[in-house]
């Protein structure tokens, strides 16, 4: 087996905020092989973004405390790293596409400048070489008239175009791992499908590993072979997508599937899961989903379930998984 590109074991992230502690991530373990595409799904606030940001240590460490038994990126333990060493991994090894391209691009710098910076920093390109490369990248992500666009500012482009620019920027150094955090959530429905297709096509071309973060389970059916479900800062299920859709093991996954119609192209929410997500400022002593779960029993309210294999490459953190029962 090849060495994993990402190896996370028991990642925890806590923010201190006005005397309170917010436990955003409460023990996440995830291993990714080179070239593998994984989808991460969960309700808003379940800790997806915070967990992903920890991979390149992008969180403000004045507020965030990150701990893990292991947090290796391409074989480098990143938790003890100095900023200087980390900077060398950001870009060529791991790269990000964020949710809102307008706020994620710098309003006062040209698009070309923002794409070429990484190339100049990591590849030592000259200004003109980097600009030519930026034009080529813009062409690759399907932006018309790239020689003109390269000198423009982000606000001069449409939402879909901006996200293409963001993608060009993230891919400039052909990263080994791309983390796309809700890359289509802020976009018009009409361009969402185009952007999804573009990212997929580039992922295949480069053969990079990828984590696709979304709160929309239906979207992942088309893009990821493996899906990880997060709830309350933990992974509650990790399974091949075919199995996850046909035989979800966790009651929460079942609820997510029921709330999203796979055949509905507009991804409309149908029956949201009743109840509210757990309060991240409270410590957990039991299954975080128990208060919203129809199957919950006494053990669910007193012990924390661990993520265990349940066959077929599927793991679930539940005392009463749906496996084997006719659900």
């Amino acid at each position, binding site marked *: 087996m090849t060495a994993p590109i990402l190896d996370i074991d028991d990642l925890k992230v806590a923010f201190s905020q006005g005397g309170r502690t917010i436990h955003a991530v409460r023990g996440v373990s995830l291993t990714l092989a080179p070239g593998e595409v994984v989808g991460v799904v969960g309700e808003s606030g379940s800790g997806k973004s915070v967990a992903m940001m920890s991979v390149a240590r*992008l969180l403000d460490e004045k507020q965030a405390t990150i701990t893990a038994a292991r947090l290796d990126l391409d074989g480098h333990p990143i938790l003890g790293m100095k900023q200087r060493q980390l*900077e060398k991994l950001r870009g060529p090894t791991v790269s990000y596409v964020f949710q809102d391209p307008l706020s994620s691009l*710098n309003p006062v*710098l040209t698009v070309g400048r923002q794409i070429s910076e990484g190339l100049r*920093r990591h590849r030592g390109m000259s200004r003109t070489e980097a600009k030519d490369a930026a034009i080529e990248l813009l062409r690759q992500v399907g932006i018309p008239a790239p020689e003109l666009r390269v000198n423009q500012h982000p606000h001069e482009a449409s939402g879909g175009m901006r996200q293409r620019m963001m993608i060009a920027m993230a891919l400039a150094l052909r990263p080994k791992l791309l983390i796309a955090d809700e890359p289509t959530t802020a976009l018009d429905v009409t361009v969402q499908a185009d952007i999804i297709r573009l990212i997929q096509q580039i992922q295949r071309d480069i053969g990079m590993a990828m984590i696709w973060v979304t709160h929309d389970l239906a979207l992942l059916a088309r893009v990821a072979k493996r899906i990880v479900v997060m709830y309350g800062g933990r992974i509650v299920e990790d399974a091949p997508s075919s199995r996850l859709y046909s035989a979800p093991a966790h009651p929460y996954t079942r609820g997510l599937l029921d709330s999203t119609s796979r055949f509905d192209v507009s991804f409309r929410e149908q029956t949201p899961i009743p109840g509210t997500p757990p309060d991240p400022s409270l410590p957990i002593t039991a299954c975080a989903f128990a208060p919203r779960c129809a199957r919950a029993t006494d053990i669910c309210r007193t012990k924390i379930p661990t993520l265990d294999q349940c066959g077929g490459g599927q793991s679930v953190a539940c005392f009463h998984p749906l496996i084997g029962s006719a659900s």
Partner: protein
Amino acid sequence: MFRFLIRRLAMAVIVLLIVSFTTFIVGHMTGDPVELIAPENATREAKEQLREYLGLNRPLLVQYTSYIGNALQGDLGFSFVQQAAVSDLIMERLPATLKLAFTGFILSLVIAVPLGIFIALNRNSVWDFLATSVAMIGQSAPNFWIGLMLIAFFAVHLKILPVSGYGGVSYIILPAITIALQSAARLTRLMRASMLEVLNADYVRTARSKGLRQRTVLWVHSFRNAMIPIVTMAGLELAELIGGAFITETIFAWPGVGRLAVNAVYQRDFPLVQGVVLFAATAFVVINLLVDLLYVLIDPRVKLS
């Protein structure tokens, strides 16, 4: 961008018209100029003659129009009290005012920008706490109090700087500090807040995610954005320093336009008061136009609106 500037220019003209009309009306309502100019024992006929000679018997609107017409040609009227043209009086005092205003302005920026950035980068540190507290006090301390304290300490107690007056470099230090402190306090707090906001912005996270050096993230990606609100505010501060150093100029016997205006009010020299107000308003408006231009240079988004 062109339309943006045209619109701003039109707004500037409107503002100046309103200001000039208001001061004109107020000037005419507060007293009869003829009573002030004419000798006490003048006869009614003599006063009427004077009124006619000065054009004060014409309808107000006509008087106003000719006042504006003259102002556009640089003629702001005649001060009977001082027996000199208002524009000459202002021009004579202007260099001193500009010297004080710009020295104070530069001083304020030199303090506020680096300090604001420093405490933003070291937020919640002892330095941050100290600087923020001092800025808060400085912002609420009145100018005349700061000026008097500075005089008491440096001029009277230590005797290392002159109490007041106009002359070499040593004379400008205390008044410049006096007018700079409040402005520096405001700008420091704004710089801190602006920098903190930018450091939390998504595009700064993007810049870090590309592996850029910390100094690139700070100076290229954060600084320029953080300066956008500072430029507007600094423009207002400068305009205020030029048009509003009345108290400081009076305390330090600084021969600027502000002191000219204060004296003019005491002597009920209306043409001069009117002239100074119009001048100060013009300075304010012109500086704001310059700020708008500068804005277009640092923030490319402005071109759209």
